[in-house]
């Protein structure tokens, strides 16, 4: 299983997350201006204000799922009319709000003054935040990020920057506070520095056996959601990278007898992290990388870090708005995936079809064929809803994963006997 709990970075992670939620609640109770944001709304902007805090419903939903209460929260939303076919993050969140976060592991999120959704990861987020907008009577700001089939265009970048300015104006008007762009710039610089360490941490997957599992990286994403733009963000990822490097150098790796190096395509299966990680390790397999965690801090079509040049922070934030997997097309996704497969020496790809997340899953059949043609790497399609355990079948999943491993083994024998 992922070793994060036993490490310094694992312990620090718990502290970072706990402190972030405590800080959010305490400052909200003292009168801070509270914003609920979609996961990829650039929180660095809020750090330009003295007393603005933010909560991330998707992140809170993932936490619920990881704690094993995702299905419980989903059912609450379903009881008030929300279809089981809707994204499980949304159902968890709507379920949580429906009874004022009664079962939340973080005492929920403080009531917002403003909702900020965006259309980049998915446009249903806007519909989801509209649910709260209507029920709570809280204003809803929609950040519209054009989907891109090729590299992000200048006209789209300008459009996004214009919306950032509007968002700042809205917060200034509503909160009575001023946004200090120097502080935003500093926050962007901290994020950039932290991402540098994040990429270094992910880079330990290149070692053989890998210094990390993708399951470690899933869990370690949390600071990106609750603490980016802060010195603590940098410190945490520096600690993580250095510690992982030292452990790898000492031969302390998650799957020492690693025989099969796999790559994961989709959101983390939050409710299965332990089981899947242990199950694969028993098969001498390790998922060493994932599109989900590799895309952070890059631009569409690449997993390499996109560095901040110290210039206009809003331009930098706009430039990286399409970096996540969902806001760009199949060709760009395939390009980045192919690079990762080569760089990490991947033996097989696990395409995790996710009923909850169409934007991530819709092109996977074609992508699977493309990867097979382009790289000759075997792959498998499994079905895992990232947060609703009711839509997951362990037996089917492992049967397929075992078939993939067998397939890799067979290909190896053919190559060796050739």
């Amino acid at each position, binding site marked *: 299983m992922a070793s994060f709990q036993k490490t310094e970075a694992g312990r620090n992670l718990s502290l970072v997350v706990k402190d972030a939620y405590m800080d959010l609640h305490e400052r909200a109770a003292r009168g801070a201006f509270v914003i609920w944001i979609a996961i990829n709304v650039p929180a660095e902007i809020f750090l330009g204000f003295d007393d603005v805090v933010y909560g991330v419903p998707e992140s809170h939903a993932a936490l619920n799922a990881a704690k094993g209460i995702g299905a419980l929260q989903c059912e609450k939303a379903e009881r008030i*009319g929300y*279809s089981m076919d809707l994204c499980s993050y949304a159902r968890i969140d709507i379920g949580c709000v429906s009874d004022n976060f009664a079962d939340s592991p973080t005492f929920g999120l403080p009531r917002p003054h403003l909702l900020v959704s965006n259309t980049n990861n998915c446009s*249903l987020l806007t519909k989801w935040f*509209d649910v709260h907008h209507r029920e709570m009577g809280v204003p*809803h700001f929609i950040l519209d990020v054009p989907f891109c089939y090729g590299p992000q265009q200048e*006209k789209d970048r300008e459009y996004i920057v214009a919306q950032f300015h509007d968002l700042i104006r809205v917060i200034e008007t509503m909160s009575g506070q001023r946004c200090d762009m120097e502080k935003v710039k500093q926050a962007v610089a901290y994020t950039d520095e932290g991402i540098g360490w994040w990429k270094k941490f992910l880079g330990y997957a290149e070692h053989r056996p890998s210094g990390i599992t993708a399951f470690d990286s899933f869990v370690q994403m949390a600071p990106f959601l609750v603490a980016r733009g802060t010195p603590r963000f940098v410190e945490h990822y520096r600690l993580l990278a250095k510690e992982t490097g030292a452990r790898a150098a000492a031969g302390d790796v998650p799957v020492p007898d690693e025989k099969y190096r796999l790559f994961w395509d989709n959101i983390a299966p939050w409710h299965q992290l332990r089981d899947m990680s242990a199950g694969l390790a028993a098969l001498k397999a390790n998922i060493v990388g994932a599109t989900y965690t590799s895309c952070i801090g890059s631009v569409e079509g690449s997993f390499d870090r996109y560095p901040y040049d110290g210039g206009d922070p809003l331009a930098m934030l706009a430039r990286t708005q399409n970096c996540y997997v969902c806001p760009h097309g199949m060709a760009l996704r395939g390009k980045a995936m192919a690079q990762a497969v080569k760089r990490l020496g991947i033996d097989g790809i696990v395409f995790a079809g996710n009923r909850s997340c*169409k934007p991530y899953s*819709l*092109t996977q059949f074609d992508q699977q064929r493309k990867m097979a043609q382009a790289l000759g790497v075997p792959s498998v399609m499994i079905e895992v809803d990232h947060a609703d355990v009711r839509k997951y079948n362990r037996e089917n999943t492992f049967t397929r994963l075992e078939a993939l491993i067998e397939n890799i083994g067979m290909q190896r024998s053919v190559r060796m006997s050739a």
Partner: protein
Amino acid sequence: MMNLLKKLDALKNDGRPIIACFPLYPPLALFHSMGLAPVVVWGLRGHVSGTETADRHLPSYTCSVARHLTEFILSDARDFIDGIFMYNACDTLRNLPEILTGQLAAAGRDVPFFHMHLPMTPRDQTEASGYLKNEIRTLITNLSDRFGVKFSSEKFQNSVALYQRMRELVLAVQDQAAAGRLGFLDFAEVMQAGAFMPVEGHIRALEDLTARPGKHNAGASKLPMDNTIGVMISGILPPQPSVVNAMTAAGMTVAADDIASFYRSYAVMPEPEPDPAEYYGKFYDDHYPCPTLLYMGDRRWAAFMDRLRQSGARAVIFIGEKFCEYEYFEFPYLEKRLAEAGFPSLRIEISIDDDQHTGAHDSRIAAFSEMLRGR
């Protein structure tokens, strides 16, 4: 399917390049004015048999609209299509173009893909009119470059006038259907056929329908109007004939629709003007609120309620397109507000499997009607 292929063939014989468009509110008059033949590939249920090809590319949790559309474009229709146009809509549709163009290329067809980003920011939040104008102008340039066609202001205004005429007729026919003088299914058939014919032909078909109402009665009320219960139907697609027949059998009539491919498409259309960039600014800003137009969320309930009250309908039947998040996020809210306003509602879910199992909703519709009669 054969029927639609024949229509495409007829369009092809007119010599106009055919542009397959989705989703529902593309700049049709612009395409028409530039000598192109836009077809809206939407609501192809009943025209596409099976989704075998689509299912090799799309997961089972994709809505039927996208699966039928994919099946259609990748099957025999592919030889007729000269271009694909799409503006940003839902998370499903935005991922289709590369699948479609990739497969068409593999079949030896180089079909260009035209894309336009419709700003989804609420208009009182972000000034995006300049962005949209630029998108329209770029589209015109790209169409001109690809097809060697020219834009003319005069032709554009003429085309808009034709679409205006079509809109007036659609609304008139809808009124006739609501009054029970025309079957809703006849209306639906003409509307669907219209998506695959030039606007001039659609106008003729609508004129024909308004001139000869007595001839058509499928789905029309069999009861005297004062014995029927008028309901409003709402959804992305019109209900299948089996649902309309079940409504008729239960003594209900479609008093109004809030269907994306029907009323939502034609409720509002600006007057012609020379600059298409200006025109489409108004077209999208003033559009009838649809859940797919994210910037209109705040106007949705008021528009929905106006439509309902004006129609005199006593209840609402939601026709849920399975896996359509846009619609399904709104249903609980609309149902709750309707209940508060004293309007009962029924939610029916139509999945792709219902193509085979028609009549699955009959008993719920009958029970709903009885409940309404008992009130």
